[in-house]
């Protein structure tokens, strides 16, 4: 039996009365506490949450919004699903606290379309908070009014990108906007909007309960705190794990019971693929950042087939707006097919790798900027093996 890990942040007792404590604080003190904790966005990009909140809190506007990004669409990621079902109240508390900290009036939960079955549960939790006067008018007598509304996505991967999410929320085609201006400045309906991942928001009550210092002491210097990881693939114990940042791949693999491992895809389809030889690398923003997914492949797997699967995903899920992502992904997929048929010259493969670099720096949003990642990392790491096979 492996040593199954213990929760670090996400244990019910850690949350205590963090919510009530938070509402007793001045809004700006919450922002400072979050900043002090070193919490970074858990969606994958890792933008410092405190800084984001500070920008929104100091913006002058008649309305502000909080959006909880529950459009968990990255292949291999399912940790928000667990949070939303097991820690529903904590997520809602995080949204309310963020609203209180930045002085917003409304919070939206943008729920992935496939998670429709959670709607009644979340709505019940919202109703419960309302009954307890923790949501609605004059929350806990603090003179603070706040509402939470639930919105369902329609299955587009790109709507997990915050500005596309906002477009979708406004009722438009879900396509990323030009940045700058950023959502914290010009977001939902043109008002300052904080968009945070479910995990980020759910962490807030715990930080306010046990203090920023408690949270700072978990993880590494540049990556404070813990991370929820969805583990799938060739492992004995797939599931959601909570680990402190800086955990070595070696330990992670041991924890989940991975055997005969060949490759590990970190951060879902748009993440990077490492070979099992890089066991001493660690999960953190400074080394291997992840939105919360690890997919393990053992030696029986064909890396080119895996790559093809990922590229097919991106060709379909690109919003189709910008040139590098719309056509670039197709060219990369075509390249994979050519390799499969043994028709891809080394020169053309080089050209495609260079195209991947171009896509990384010229695409409009994070989707196109990260979609060449599997192509580049798999063909760089396993290129020899693949070219020898085909």
């Amino acid at each position, binding site marked *: 039996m492996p040593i199954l890990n213990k929760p670090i942040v996400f244990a019910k007792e850690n949350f205590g009365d963090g919510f009530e404590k938070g509402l007793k604080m001045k809004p700006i003190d919450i922002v400072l506490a979050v900043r002090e904790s070193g919490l970074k966005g858990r969606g994958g990009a890792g933008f410092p949450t405190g800084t984001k909140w500070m920008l929104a809190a100091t913006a002058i506007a008649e309305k502000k919004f909080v959006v909880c990004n529950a459009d968990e669409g990255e292949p291999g990621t399912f940790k928000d699903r667990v949070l939303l079902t097991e820690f529903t109240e904590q997520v809602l508390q995080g949204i309310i606290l963020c609203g209180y900290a930045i002085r917003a009036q409304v919070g939206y939960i943008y729920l992935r379309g496939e998670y429709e079955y959670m709607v009644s549960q979340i709505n019940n939790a919202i109703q419960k908070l309302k009954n307890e006067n923790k949501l609605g008018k004059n929350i806990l007598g603090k003179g603070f009014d706040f509402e939470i509304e639930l919105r369902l996505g329609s299955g*587009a991967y*790109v709507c997990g990108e915050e*500005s596309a999410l906002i*477009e979708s929320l406004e009722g*438009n*085609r879900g396509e990323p*906007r*030009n*940045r*700058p*201006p950023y959502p914290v400045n*010009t977001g939902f*309906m*043109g008002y300052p909007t904080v968009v945070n991942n479910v995990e980020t928001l759910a962490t807030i009550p715990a930080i306010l309960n046990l203090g920023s210092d408690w949270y700072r002491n978990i993880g590494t210097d540049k990556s404070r705190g813990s991370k929820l990881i969805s583990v799938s693939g060739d492992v004995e114990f797939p599931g959601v794990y909570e680990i402190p940042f800086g955990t070595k791949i070696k330990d992670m693999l041991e924890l989940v019971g991975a055997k005969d491992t060949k490759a590990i895809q970190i951060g879902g389809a748009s993440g990077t693929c490492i070979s099992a030889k890089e066991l001493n690398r660690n999960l953190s923003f400074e080394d291997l950042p992840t939105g919360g997914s690890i997919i393990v492949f053992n030696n029986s797997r064909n890396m080119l087939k895996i790559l093809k699967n990922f590229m097919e995903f*991106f*060709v*379909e*899920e*690109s*919003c*189709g*707006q*910008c*040139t*590098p992502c*719309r*056509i*670039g*992904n*197709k*060219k990369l997929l*075509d390249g994979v097919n050519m390799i499969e048929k043994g028709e891809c010259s080394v020169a053309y493969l080089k*050209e495609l790798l*260079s*195209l991947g670099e*171009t896509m*990384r*720096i*010229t*695409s*409009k949003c994070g989707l196109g*900027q990260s979609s060449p990642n599997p192509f580049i990392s798999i063909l760089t790491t396993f290129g020899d093996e693949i070219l020898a096979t085909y």
Partner: protein
Amino acid sequence: MTDGNYVSRTPVSQQPLKIEQSSPHDIGGLVEIEINSKKFKVPFGITILEACKLFDIHVPTLCHHEDLCIAGVCRICSVEVEGMRTLQASCSFPITQSIKIHTSSEKVRKSRRHILDLLLSEHYGECYSCVRNNNCELQKLAKEYGVDFYRFGHVKEPYYDIDKSSYSIVRDMNKCILCRRCVRTCIDLQEVGVLEALNRGYDTKITTFLDKPISEVICINCGQCINRCPTGALRTNDPSDIIWEAIDNPKKHVVIQTAPSPRAAIGEEFGLPAGNSLTRELNTALKMIGFDRVFDTNFTADLTIMEEGTELLNRLKAAIVDKDESVKLPQFTSCSPGWVKYCEHFYPDFLSHLSTAKSPQQMFGAVIKTFYAQEENIDPADIVTVALMPCSAKKFECNRPEMVDSGFKDVDFGLTTRELAQMIKEAGINLPDLPKSNFDEPFGEASGAGLIFGATGGVMEAALRSVYEIVTGRTVPFDNLVISPCRGMEGVREASIKLENVKDEWKFLEGVELKFMIAHGTANAKKVMEKLKKGELKDVHFVEIMGCPGGCLGGGGQPIPTSPEIRQKRAEAIYKEEAELPIRKSHENPHVVYLYSKFLTEGPCGHLSHKLLHTTYTKRGNYIA
């Protein structure tokens, strides 16, 4: 985002950054930036692209257009900003701090070439069989970047059928590069919204509601999308082959009427800068090509003023003297077929506000196949009437089923400026070199009032010159007949003119403040119509609306490219030409006077006028295309 209760469809993030100005002379704060290692000071908030334009630094663009909101989708304008991980699209990146920009570093050049190669790999079509050959932005970029092979391959088969269903607009989506200029033109500039992106990722395409043919959706045929398409994906439905056939057929008597706007712009097709009017050179060219008669649409523009002006006075009389509450005021102009169709689709309950007068093009068709045929003793069945128009909607208009009052199709073909220029080139003629010649009798020279129809506000100005003089017996109280409130390029204009010391038969108008409004582009028309809906236009009498930005001179059949500056120059050319004409009031046009004395003997809005020169409208709404 809001202008009163009016909400723009433009996404907030794509609207220009507004900078608070303490005084009109204050351009806001300045930011010192570095472009290609040179230092510049630029106003806070402008985009990198605008900054580069200020200092003549070339940055290639495709999805960017001066008339449209920012999209930032083609990425060809990417530049390097020091300290940023990714390149930035210069069209959409606002300068808010001191940054260092590189517009042609190695990374930038390599990326642009990649993007261009990606676009070319999906762009089906060969340049030499394309209407935009030599005037294509993609082709120009390919040359600029020295493309000599297709790095990522090239499509060999078309994947979409060409949509030729419309009289006006042809859509060949095989050439589409998804820059979305047409989408932004349709939704934001014109507020019509028949074009949108469909599907996702690689399958994305620009199409209409439910992927229907363009003739089956509520397209108003304004053709503004064509003017802004960087490639040949959008074009007009070109009738020139059939016109050639008619010209070559000795049995056919082919007449052409030329509108003022194409004449002010056709020089651009022959390499002249915008703002050169070639009216009389064009007369020579048309004769050389083989048209039997060349007439001036301004003649029927004058006729329109007589009919529409009389209709307005009749409406005023009915409203003021007879207290007839069924009479609708303000009266709207109906010369612009794009605007008429827009009104039919979006404001079908307000069609009775539209003047029943036909457009000058259709009036001319009806007059040619009746009066002219009679005078010249030609069988109208043998007459082919062609109309040179700046407009794609005119093609639809002449095919409306109700436009057959002469007993025949009043106007057989609407021809755009671009298409005629092509015919002239095909005939081996270099237009600017030709000698000048006059228009043909019996319609001869028209008034300047008809000429200024081409610019926004022109119909109003022409109408006021005549109405004021008919009512008061004096010329309008403006220097040199230039009614300045009618001129300019502001989207919606409003002014009034007081009628005093009127003639006896118009006593009921004594002291009336004649209020009028002018709007151009259907987005501005929408603003006016929303006011009308709310009952805010009760004291307005007359409204001129043109479907295209700038009026006819910015029409969908005009030379490409278009920009506010180009439209301004065309307007100047029109006003300059008109100032030099001997007759500048419609009611003084001797040929119009002759027509009313010989043919339309009951006068304007008389019985025969009503039959030939007036029309009816259809409540189309959302369901009748």
